[in-house]
């Protein structure tokens, strides 16, 4: 899901760089007001885990793999604003240390995975939490479904960026269809991994998950 340099033109990349920087600033301000002592190491651990999981590409169809984006996982575990920062840390380390994701494309990637994936996916998670019955397994189920949805959402981010500043003379419809079709399938893996990890955390330490009522916390 990491866009390399050159696929989206420089002007558009710079514009999304500015959007990413603005989003980062807003997320810092919001995190400053909401983060508690425990969430500092928790957010660092979440970033490390998302980095690790992104190293594991799983096969999807012949000749194509997918990997966790981790936006919903991070947003559910530490909150949406801190979740956006977690994904940004992962993307910056990947771009600077592992040459994964272009340097000029960093803003594009932060917007797709950090803003659309984490915060957009978190909105879906909140809606599901409200709609689904309040049972012990609901947090993991809602996180899994939201994670599934977040992948085609993030893919749409790329399609919009391509529509604005794509450097190739390829039909937008073809890119849209291909991105959606492949990322719905990758989303299944995202949903399964996110559901399992959130479920494991809910089993061992439900009290660290934001928005989980104390009653649910002592039940397990």
């Amino acid at each position, binding site marked *: 899901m990491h*866009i*390399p*340099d*050159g*696929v989206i033109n420089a002007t558009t990349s710079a514009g999304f760089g500015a959007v990413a920087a603005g989003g980062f600033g807003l997320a*810092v301000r919001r*995190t*400053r*007001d909401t*983060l508690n*002592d*425990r969430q*500092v*190491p*928790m*957010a*660092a*651990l979440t*970033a*490390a*885990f*998302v*980095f*690790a*999981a992104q*190293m*594991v*590409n*799983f*096969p999807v169809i012949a*000749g*194509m*793999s*997918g*990997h966790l984006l981790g936006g919903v996982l991070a947003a559910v575990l530490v909150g949406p604003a*801190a979740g956006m*920062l*977690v994904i940004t*840390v992962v993307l*910056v*380390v*990947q771009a*600077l*240390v*592992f*040459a*994964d994701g*272009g*340097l000029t494309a960093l803003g594009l990637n932060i917007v797709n995975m950090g803003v659309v994936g984490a915060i957009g996916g978190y909105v879906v998670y909140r809606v599901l939490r409200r709609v689904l019955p309040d049972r012990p397994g609901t947090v993991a189920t809602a996180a899994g479904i939201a994670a599934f949805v977040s992948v085609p959402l993030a*893919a749409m981010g790329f399609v919009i960026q391509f529509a604005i500043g794509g450097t*190739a003379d*390829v039909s937008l419809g*073809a*890119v849209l269809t*291909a*991105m959606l079709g*492949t*990322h719905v399938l*990758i989303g299944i893996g995202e949903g399964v991994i996110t559901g399992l990890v959130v479920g494991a955390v809910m089993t061992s*330490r439900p009290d660290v998950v934001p928005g989980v009522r104390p009653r649910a916390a002592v039940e397990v």
Partner: protein
Amino acid sequence: MTVDRSFRRFLVVGFLAAMLVAVVVSQFASSDPDGLEYVVEDEGFIDQAREHDLADTALADYGDGFTGNSALDTTVAGLVGVTVTAVVGWGLFRLVRHRHLDRAT
């Protein structure tokens, strides 16, 4: 700090789990292109992509070619990546949190 012992244990187990995923599970990762790269190739505009500006650095492409042994390359990339991400993340969130404390006093 209100970080109790059992929470510390949770953090240690979580960190070890991340290391296990990055160093061991990652050895079994698919080397096929991911969804976006697949689409860019399939739609015929992979030529638009420029080589990464840091493609010649030691751990570029997750250490590929770093030691000449791909399992070892992945191990080094996993160890370094998880550690660096945890440290950078901890530093950033400590900084953000620290500013909060400054404001509160």
